């Protein structure tokens, strides 16, 4: 169900949160931003995952990571298309993916940095998939029919991603001395970015803070089984939901968008 402009806030959103967006922006616009945030998380994750295809530690893993990237891309496409419809300005999934500038992307920092180390890729997938498992399950029971449908489909996909990441984090953590050390370092590197997922977002359909306990319940036992420790780290600054990104984001978008932007208005 599309929330019409100037209506009451969407369901499930907690009240009393500090405003982080433009106070004059209508509520429907805030929901668009919220959906774009989730879409961009999935899109940027898929973009980073695509790097692994032909570079995985073994052939089975090339297949698996391609599969996960494809799921993420599919989620991104569904959410981007919906954000475009909500916005009502006729923008397509491709308009939103290829023609927005960096400041208009709303993904979190967790997903946008390069992940060219397999331990980092699996640590991040563990966190992202655990969070998406909670998020999509909550969306599946939201009163927004489109988000509920996207959530119901995606929750099955990310359950597999979580299984996959879990099996690698455990094997690498509890493998050799070298892999134990590298997996702990990877977890330490990714953990500071977890916090941003739970910060308030204007227009949120699912209260981000409500997902924290569920995510930690999923992740913490995996870390223990992997004989690793939960990092005690200061959360990263973040700011992706407001369009403020790391320096790596510009390169990601330059690569992803350049061909599309070089030929304005054509079909592919």
């Amino acid at each position, binding site marked *: 169900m599309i929330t019409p402009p100037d209506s009451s806030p969407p369901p499930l959103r907690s009240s009393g949160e500090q405003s982080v967006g433009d106070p004059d922006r209508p509520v429907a616009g805030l929901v668009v931003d919220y959906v774009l945030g989730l879409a961009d998380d999935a899109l940027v994750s898929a973009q980073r995952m695509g790097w692994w*295809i*032909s570079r995985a*530690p073994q*052939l089975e893993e*090339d*297949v698996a990571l*391609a599969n996960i990237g*494809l799921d993420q891309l599919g989620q991104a496409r569904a959410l981007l298309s919906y954000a475009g419809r909500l916005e009502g300005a006729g923008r397509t999934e491709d308009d939103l993916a290829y023609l927005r500038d960096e400041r208009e992307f709303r993904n979190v920092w967790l997903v946008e940095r390069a992940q060219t180390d397999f331990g980092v890729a699996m640590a991040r997938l563990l966190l992202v998939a655990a969070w998406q498992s909670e998020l999509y399950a909550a969306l599946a029971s939201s009163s927004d029919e489109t988000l509920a449908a996207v959530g119901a489909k995606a929750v099955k996909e990310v359950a597999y991603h979580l299984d996959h990441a879990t099996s690698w984090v455990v*094997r690498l953590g509890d493998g050799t001395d070298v892999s134990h050390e590298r997996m702990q370092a990877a977890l330490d590197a990714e953990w500071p970015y977890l916090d941003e997922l739970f910060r308030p977002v204007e227009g949120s359909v699912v209260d981000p803070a409500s997902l924290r306990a569920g995510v930690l319940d999923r992740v913490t036992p995996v870390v223990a089984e992997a004989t690793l420790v939960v990092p005690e780290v200061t959360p990263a600054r973040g700011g992706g939901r407001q369009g403020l990104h790391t320096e790596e984001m510009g390169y990601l978008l330059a690569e992803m968008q350049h061909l599309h932007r070089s030929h304005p208005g054509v079909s592919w």
Partner: protein
Amino acid sequence: MLHDVARDADICHILGYRRPVAFDDLLAGDGRVEPRDEMPEGYRRTLVRQIAQHAHSEIIGMQPEGNWISRAPSLRRKAILMAKVQDEAGHGLYLYAAAETLGVDRADLLDQLHTGRQKYSSIFNYPTLTWADVGAIGWLVDGAAIVNQVPLCRCSYGPYARAMVRICKEESFHQRQGFEILHTLSHGSPAQQRMAQDAVDRYWWPALMMFGPPDDDSPNSAQSMAWGIKRFSNDDLRQRFVDMTVPQAQALGLTLPDPQIAWNEDRGHYDFGPIDFTELAEVIKGNGPCNQQRLAHKVQAHEDGAWVREAASAYAAKHARPTEGAA
């Protein structure tokens, strides 16, 4: 009669209850040789070399197209391309598994690839310079691969033949996707049309070389034909590809870069110009545009993943059932 016996034997063997049949009887009856059948050492060696080379081609072939995943110009194209490159990894898996039925090990075959002792198809030593190259690879390279591989579905070695059935189905899907990419470009803006023509100009001749040297310079072909591994000669397959592709090029509105292409009424085939086989020889020798790059990428991925594979083995050993250790 022998024919039927061999066929029945073939089916029973797949189901696991066929007795081994003599090699010559199987070949005479157009039956399938299965892993537990006796086979001449030369036959086994030829198959290992061919299947391994085929598997290596699939996984090295992930690189030129993978090169465009991050830059695909629409999300739909990005999804199709990721799925396609994933299919290639899957083909590599079936083929390594088929090779392993002949008593070799995937790790050894990869080692031979990484050290240059086994080859992969020379076509993947050409660069993908524009998005249209992804279309040209789908249309021409996968098109040529299909012509080469459809007869392999009837190869005398059962596991290889069965792997090829599935691979050919997926390849024909890929070929149509490549055709569709080029069709969109050739019916698009002038810049897109130039991009499509340029890709076809660069990939046409290398695609023709995928069928190998001409018949009178193909020393192993006769034996492979006698063994039922190869069903048609290099030049016959090349002609079949040209005959199939010329009308498709017309449908695309693109020009194949060979002024000598013309329908020959007497032969019932398209004539085409001479192929520069010194180019093929150079690329096979290692002097193509991307030989070093492709191999270095593969070796780098393998070396970067060593700690992961070692960890997986160590974990499996640690957590093996106690009975396995006691046995």
